[in-house]
């Protein structure tokens, strides 16, 4: 199971995602949910707790780059 499978997943911010700090998002993987370190994909976005995010890019082993998800 490659981590690239995280890309495209939709998760929830559990720790504020902002440039310069390490945010946290919870994603559903492997039948459960896990917390991943998160950074804004564009390097500038500030995403508050509770907002849904889309995983745009991932980095080994537990880091994802996200952007706010506003709906399909």
């Amino acid at each position: 199971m490659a981590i690239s499978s995280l890309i495209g997943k939709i998760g929830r911010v559990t720790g504020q995602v902002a440039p310069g700090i390490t945010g946290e998002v919870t994603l559903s993987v492997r039948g459960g949910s896990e917390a991943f370190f998160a950074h804004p994909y564009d390097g500038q976005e500030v995403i508050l707790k509770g907002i849904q995010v889309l995983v745009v890019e991932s980095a080994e082993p537990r880091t994802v780059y996200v952007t706010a998800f506003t709906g399909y």
Partner: protein
Amino acid sequence: MNAAISQLAKIPVFAYPVIGVVAIIIVLILLFKAMWRVAEPNEALIISGLSKKGTVKDSTGDEMGFRIVTGKGTLVLPGVQAVRRLSLDLHQADLVVDCVTAQGIPVHVQGTVIYKIGDDPTSITNAARRFLDQQDKMDQRVHNVFAGHLRSIVGSMTVEDMIRDREQLTTKTRDASGTEMVKLGLVVDSLQIQEIDDPTGYIANLAKPHTAAVQSAARIAQADADREATQREQEANALKAEAERDSAIKQAGFQAERDRAQQEAAQAGPLAEAQARQAVVEQETRAAELEAGREQQRLVASVIRPAEAKRDADIAAAEATSRVAELTAQGNAKRITLAAEAEAAATRLTGQAEADATEAKGKAEGAAIEARGLAEAAAIKARAEALATNPEAVAMQQLAENWADIVGQAASAFAHVDNFTVLNGAEGVNGALMQVASTGMAGFELLRGMFMPKAVAAAAPTPAPDAATAGADTTGGTDGH
């Protein structure tokens, strides 16, 4: 043993191949059982050794040469493959760190970090290569690593933030430890600061203003409540007292009415009696008045009228008498006036006659005195002449003329004596009188002695006129008597 052999002996020959197959199956099952390994949900099997497929590969296709099996079973070839279990359970490391906050306040922090091996193959791989033989020592390792992280986390925060701002704490935990823990294949689920012990009393002092404010508010509230309660209580008491007062007043009023009614009832008998007696007395009074009126009428008829008649008669009589007396008095007065006038005329005439007589008598006396004076002058002149010739004879004559007066003067000494006590009786009285008389004689002798030398010594005529004047005076005085 013998029994088993004997039992085998009993088995028919045709059954031997069946038994052999069964035995082989049993052996195969046991073998499979020995080679088949199952990974439970909280563990991962790390299989190394002979492996054709399923080994961990990275994105470039490099492989680590071992397999990771989670959540399912796999066949392990004994001897050519090694299988190890890696627990994916939660781990806990207790941390005790002395450090300094962002404000420079020394604190003693007790914390707990809860972590586990990451569920993804990368984390399991990392962890397997670090801790597979040291799973017991994992907590110690993590403790050592995380103590430093906690120190830096506390050092970048204030005490207030540590107490209040959990979000900041977890963010900083991720910042500080994320990368490093990932290297170890670990995931920090939670960092809790259980206790912050600050020897300087910073936290206690932090709480004091609020504590004081809360205490103050509590006391104020209690005092307010007390005051309000007391106020209400007093108001209630006042209302109670008012109600009691009103009740007492009403009761007193009712009691007074009852008393009044009772008294009136009690007085009704005596009152009626008194009224009856009053009526009787009024009637009696009326009767007495009538009787008095009758008596008055009777007296008027029997006494006053006759008295008035008598009085009128007496007045008339008195007036008549008075008139008579008046007329009599007038007559008397007239008569007396006439008599007085007559007497006055007579007196006037008598006075006139007496005056005339007195005038005539005075004139005659004057002539007589003149004549006597002239005669005395002649006599004095003659006596002076005689004195000049024989003065002792003249003096003696004068003394003789006045002797009665001299003795009288001496006797006047006894005039003021109330009780003249004489010790030797009648003889004494005579003696006393004789002494007075002899005193007169002695005075006579003394006078004679006085005059005589003068008369002898002074032949001058000067004393003669003095003696003559004195003699004239004496004579005149005597005449006056």
